């Protein structure tokens, strides 16, 4: 016995010594198609499923992928990795060299593949685009091409995938609750507080328990649920010029007011008390159960479960449930907003240098951006299955089961759409029963946009490898920890905030401000 266990013990000891395996080598030409046949050229697309229900379960021989292959004349393979851990999975793919021909990344200088541009891992696409992508140049706006997410030192390493709309962040509110309480749409912070108080008092969902509803629902991705801080003139994650220096909003003293406000929400029972531990899935479940009076959302989510049809399916035992899309709450001086003004880029395609016949990929994207059949596919799906056409008129029913089940429409409008988020493309909006509602929603979102001075700023070197001084509501940074402690009452705002600012600056924040300011000055000079 002893001897045997000893052996077992020894092997286990070695198992405890863990190291990151080196897999720097690449296996070349694994997916390479034949160079001579331009038709049916194989393109392996590596991307995330972005939590789209249909893409999550799509197989290689999915009918939509087949259709897109057929229409484009390319042999397409879409590999959907998980969304929540996409950075991690992609990082491992870069380490192992098992890449696709066309890869989704947030930006060419992302930490997912630090050093990729310098090491020549990504192809310089400029000559190829000039030669093979006339429509790419025409259809994708100049501002997107110039973004540091796409180009560096005058070379283009990525192809932007567009957000489709300039903004999509709104506040979803239970319209039926507002009606029941005889309230008009809340506009200011005080309106919201008034609404929250009534929600707290009344048994809004009618289940007999008046204490299981919260005015606003939040979860551990605070950045996605923070609708109030901008009303105080500060937004975690953004930079603005103060005293001639580009500094992050999180160290602005006005941040104290925003945090104090959240503490008030927490203490008054206006927000679910488990906001720092609740996961997004539970948050969505709470919404469906009728426990949440308002929450931040994206306009496109409206069609995927919260419009008149969708609400009936989404909300459990609440036949009258209705949702409206609203502006961000306004503070005392009329400030407020949701979503930072951005460069209009959803994510970026990169092509690894080892990919064979990259011009074919450019041609494919050029086709996707210009061909009429592509336009229709990315809006309505497969002809004869998802929509029909009679004498040139498209008949498309979004609520039909073939489009609505598992949100199948997201497959052709988002997941396979290699050019943009297609939920609000002109063709889609035209065919929507909620067309007016959606257009209004996008207008609201556009008005919600927060202006800031850090627009187009590339990733700062001084933040590299220091997640603790990140400037937004990230996981495991000083700011988020301080925010959570103050809101839950573990620490008082004044001392905690001042300590945080001093700590942040000492640990490298000063360099962050310096680097940001230098970028700002040089960027705005030219």
């Amino acid at each position, binding site marked *: 016995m002893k001897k045997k266990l000893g052996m*077992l013990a020894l092997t286990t000891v070695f198992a405890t010594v863990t190291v*990151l395996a080196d897999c720097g080598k690449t296996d070349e030409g694994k997916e390479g198609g034949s160079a001579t046949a331009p038709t049916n050229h194989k393109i392996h697309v590596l991307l995330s499923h972005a939590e789209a229900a249909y893409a999550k379960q799509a197989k290689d021989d999915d009918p939509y992928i087949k259709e897109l292959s057929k229409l484009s004349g390319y042999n397409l393979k879409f590999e959907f990795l998980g969304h929540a851990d996409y950075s*991690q999975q992609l990082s491992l793919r870069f380490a192992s060299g098992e890449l696709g021909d066309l890869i989704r990344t947030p930006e060419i200088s992302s930490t997912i593949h630090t050093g990729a541009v310098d*090491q020549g891992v990504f192809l310089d696409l400029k000559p190829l685009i000039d030669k093979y992508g006339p429509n790419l140049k025409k259809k994708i706006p100049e501002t997107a091409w110039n973004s540091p997410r796409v180009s560096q030192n005058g070379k283009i390493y990525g192809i932007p995938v567009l957000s489709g709309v300039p903004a999509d962040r709104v506040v979803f509110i239970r319209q039926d609750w507002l009606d029941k309480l005889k309230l008009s749409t809340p506009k200011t912070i005080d309106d919201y507080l008034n609404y929250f108080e009534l929600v707290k008092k009344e048994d809004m969902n009618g289940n007999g328990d008046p204490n299981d509803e919260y005015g606003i629902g939040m979860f551990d991705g605070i950045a996605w649920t923070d609708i109030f801080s901008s009303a105080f003139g500060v937004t975690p994650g953004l930079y603005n010029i103060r005293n001639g220096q580009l500094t992050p909003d999180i160290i602005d003293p006005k941040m104290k007011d925003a945090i104090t406000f959240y503490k008030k929400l927490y203490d008054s029972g206006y927000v679910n008390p488990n906001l720092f531990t609740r996961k997004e899935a539970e948050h969505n479940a709470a919404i469906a159960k009728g426990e949440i009076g308002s929450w931040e959302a994206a306009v496109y989510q409206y069609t995927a479960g919260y419009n008149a049809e969708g609400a009936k399916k989404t909300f459990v035992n609440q036949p009258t449930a209705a949702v409206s899309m609203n502006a961000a709450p306004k503070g005392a001086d009329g400030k407020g907003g949701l979503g930072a003004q951005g460069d209009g880029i959803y994510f970026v395609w990169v092509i690894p240098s080892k990919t064979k016949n990259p011009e074919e990929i450019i041609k494919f994207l050029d086709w996707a951006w210009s061909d009429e059949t592509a336009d229709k596919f990315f809006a309505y799906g497969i002809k004869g299955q998802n929509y029909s056409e009679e004498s040139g008129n498209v008949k498309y029913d979004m609520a039909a089961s073939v489009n609505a089940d598992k949100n199948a429409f997201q497959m052709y409008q988002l997941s396979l759409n290699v050019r943009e988020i297609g939920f609000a493309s002109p063709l889609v909006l035209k065919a929507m029963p909620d067309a007016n509602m959606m257009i209004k929603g996008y207008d609201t979102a556009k008005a919600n946009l927060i202006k800031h001075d850090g627009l187009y700023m590339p990733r700062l070197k001084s933040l590299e490898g220091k997640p603790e001084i990140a400037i937004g509501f990230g996981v*495991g940074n000083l700011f988020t*920890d301080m925010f959570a402690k103050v809101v839950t009452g573990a620490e008082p705002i004044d001392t905690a905030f001042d300590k945080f600012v001093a700590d942040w600056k000492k640990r490298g924040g000063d360099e962050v401000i310096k680097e940001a300011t230098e970028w700002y000055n040089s960027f705005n000079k030219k």
Partner: protein
Amino acid sequence: MSPQLRKHIYSKDALQVLLIALPGLVAILLFKYVPLAGNMIAFKNYNLFQGVWQSDWVGLDHFRRMFAFEDFGKIFWNSVRLGLYSILFGFPAPLILALLLNEMRLAWFKRSVQTLLYLPHFLSWVIVGGIFFNLLDVKGFVNKLLGGWGVAAIDFIGNPDTFIGTIIAIGIWKEVGWGMIIYLAALAGVNPNLYEAAMVDGASRLKQMLHISLPSIMPAIVVLLLLRIGNLLDANIEQMLIFLNPLVRDVGEVFDTYIYRVGLLGSQFSYTTAIGIFKSVIGLVLIMGVNTLSKRTTGESIY
């Protein structure tokens, strides 16, 4: 080579045994020893695209950075505390359970209990996390129960005072049944004559357990304990990532979670490999220390 030895080696039996062992040996060599060489990136500025060999040497820079890191002391202490607590409570749990289960008379009952107990082992941490987040929520089942007895709601997962205890308790719940199997196997190997003799001498069930069952499986216990101590600084990364939240980071941030965030999410492979080596060295020192100690005191050791 003596003719006997040669005969022995080339005998059919020995050859078979060697062949059976071969895949295991190759696997260990390939997946445990070869990657050890990868540790050299702790002394280099490893870049994904330059590979291990082309990256520049930087000496002990990454170790210096680690020791200079403001939170190093905190993370070290958190890791040690979590490790100590989980050995203190997590290690005896399956042993006690195995001893108790061993006393069960009804075989079918014993078997079903055993199966039920190790079932949670097969659940992923995501699911276990979901279950316990709901149960232990401020408004969850446990707090409703406590509320019935007049106890104020406790935020088990969001309160630094209760977090470590909760984590360890959940860990025990999930793995206790699985850990018990090895002890049950050891107990099954105890010679029944010993029990019969003790019974004749009038030993009670408790005495039998203390003086026969426990000493008989002592070698297994010691070996497992030694191994466990070698892993003192290893947290269950999946569990920690699910339960860790901003409210408890001060007590819950351990080496593994820090490595995950900085290394894997931030691509700081060299730096975090340095931390990993530091962890391994501590583990090695610990295991050698307690092994010597154990050899001197109990006579049991793993090498």
